[in-house]
């Protein structure tokens, strides 16, 4: 081994950015070599592809909802797309066809009905028919481009589940990686070489790259899938919301990643991760359930679209529904970004104060002190 003076000339002091990048690179590299990660990612991508294609079949199958129509009701359905009309003489014949199952429903003239007709169906009226009929002139004037209910639900689930899974998967990854370093004590070696904040930043950036990569591939699958299955109409509606979703996800994930890292730093063993990260898990799951149950409730969606933790799901959803003004995503993004900065500052504090405290869980008050 050579002398100290001659060998040291080859090593330079790393900048903060270089240290951070080295850490990020390792995070990405170690994840990309995990078989479990690769397999689960492949399953996720295949699932997304299946969802898009299934959506395509759904859209096509709706082109032929069989209905029986009496002559006096024909005027109400003649402009309705997606119907396979069977002309019948009177109501009795229509009901017979419905009972026999030859048609899903019958549209019959009815003077007592305010719309002038009645739908007769077996046990429930076909959604596609109701939706189609909802485009009657008075409705069309109010909302000329209504969003299909099934599609709305599908999109809500899509945004909700992609956000939840992405945030959960990589939130858990960053938490595990923080605790692994604590548990194996490699953290002492790391922070004797680089600043604690560079280590935290590297972990957050590395996992954000992975999470964003996954989101972008999913977005790509959605777009390509929609084009291939001929759902260009859906794509026209979804393109912008998907782009906004990606942007919101980026900030939303950084926010969560900083909190996950901080939470994980407070414990010393993998078994204890849950004790500090469970609240974060609920925060991640909440937007999914809210958007699934309240995707037709503008008030809930509006609140969701401004709360930083649910904005990545809420705002794209509102954009898809055409409920948001052009400036709303920008305002919401600004709120999210500000929260993000705050979370990074608080997270870094907790992380720094907890990283070398082994054994029992560090109390939040102690982690924030000093």
């Amino acid at each position: 081994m050579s002398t100290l003076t001659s060998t040291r000339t080859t090593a330079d002091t790393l900048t903060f950015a270089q240290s951070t990048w080295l850490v990020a690179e390792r995070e990405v590299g170690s994840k990309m070599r995990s078989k479990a990660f690769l397999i689960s990612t492949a399953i996720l991508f295949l699932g997304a592809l299946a969802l898009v294609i299934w959506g395509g079949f759904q859209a096509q199958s709706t082109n032929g909802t069989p209905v029986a129509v009496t002559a006096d009701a024909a005027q109400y359905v003649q402009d309705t797309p997606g119907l396979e009309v069977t002309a019948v003489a009177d109501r009795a014949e229509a009901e017979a066809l419905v009972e026999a199952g030859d048609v899903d429903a019958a549209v019959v003239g009815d003077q007592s009905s305010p719309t002038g007709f009645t739908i007769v169906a077996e046990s429930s009226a076909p959604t596609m028919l109701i939706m189609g009929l909802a485009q009657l002139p008075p409705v069309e004037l109010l909302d000329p481009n209504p969003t299909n209910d099934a599609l709305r639900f599908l999109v809500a689930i899509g945004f909700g589940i992609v956000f939840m899974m992405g945030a959960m998967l990589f939130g858990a990854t960053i938490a595990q990686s923080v605790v692994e370093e604590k548990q194996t004590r490699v953290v002492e070696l790391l922070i004797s070489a680089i600043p604690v904040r560079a280590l935290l930043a590297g972990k957050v950036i590395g996992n954000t790259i992975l999470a964003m990569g996954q989101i972008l591939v999913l977005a790509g699958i959605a777009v390509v899938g929609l084009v291939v299955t001929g759902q260009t109409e859906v794509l026209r509606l979804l393109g912008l919301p998907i782009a906004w979703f990606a942007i919101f996800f980026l900030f939303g994930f950084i926010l969560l990643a900083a909190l996950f890292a901080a939470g994980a730093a407070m414990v010393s063993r993998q078994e204890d991760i849950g004790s500090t990260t469970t609240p974060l898990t609920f925060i991640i799951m909440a937007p999914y359930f809210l958007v699934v149950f309240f995707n037709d409730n503008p008030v809930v969606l509006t609140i969701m679209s401004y709360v930083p933790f649910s904005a990545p799901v809420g705002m794209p959803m509102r954009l898809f529904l055409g409920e948001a003004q052009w400036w709303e995503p920008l305002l919401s993004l600004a709120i999210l970004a500000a929260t993000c900065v705050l979370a990074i500052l608080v997270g870094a504090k907790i992380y720094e104060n907890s990283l070398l405290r082994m054994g029992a869980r560090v109390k939040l008050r102690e982690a924030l002190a000093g």
Partner: protein
Amino acid sequence: MLQLSGITKSYGGRRVLDDVTFDVRPGRLTGFVGGNGAGKTTTMRIVLGVLAKDAGTVALDGAEVTASDRRRFGYMPEERGLYPKMKVLEHIVYLARLHGFAKTDAETRATALLEKLGLGERLGDNVETLSLGNQQRAQIAAALVHDPAVLILDEPFSGLDPLAVDVVAGVLQERAAAGASVLFSSHQLDVVERLCDDLVIIAGGAIRAAGARDSLRAQYSSRRFELVSAGDAGWLRAEPGVEVLDFDGGYAVFDVDSDETAQRVLRRAVAQGDVASFAPQHPTLAQIFKEVIQ
């Protein structure tokens, strides 16, 4: 030279380090001994900047140690830790790069060092598949790969078989010979005794003794002598100022009350018969340690 002065650290009102002051000289191995909970690990962590001190200074060549100085420190924590799922070579390369080496340079160094430590065959294996002893070697590589000017090793020999102890000791001596300041702690006092040039003894968070090993030995030696002679040394028992501790024919170990008494005994021994050896008996490190920490 690494100088610690007046280092104090408390955990919630309990003082774990109290005015810790000692030097770690370049080109020498400094042994750091103390019982469990004496403050060795805390001291080392403070030197590394991994832990904040309450008071005192850590200086390198007269100037307070900065973060960039610390990039030139090598550290082996008490609790061993490497990423279990990283390959050995890759791991050491990563640490070298964190210390500022370019990728290819880091690879060259890491490979050479691991081969020297006897891990040449295991470069591509995951750390977790190595035996405990080999993980220990990898850990030492992690501390050395960036050619540190200051080496802080917390129990580098624990868990090593005698052969591995020699390999590691050899590497440390080599680093010291190249001009590094090396501080290592150990519970294996015989190993410390054999290796170290300087010694620091800590107990209850305070330094009880520090200095060159030989001068400490001289300082703590009671006036104990060993005599090996041809004749019967039984007359020693009757000598005034002499207390015989061990006796067997011409062999005796005894304490004297003064240097004069020792000289008198030597003269008489020579007069009684051939003297093969007459020498002051230095206390072992274990003896000094016990005496100092009381």
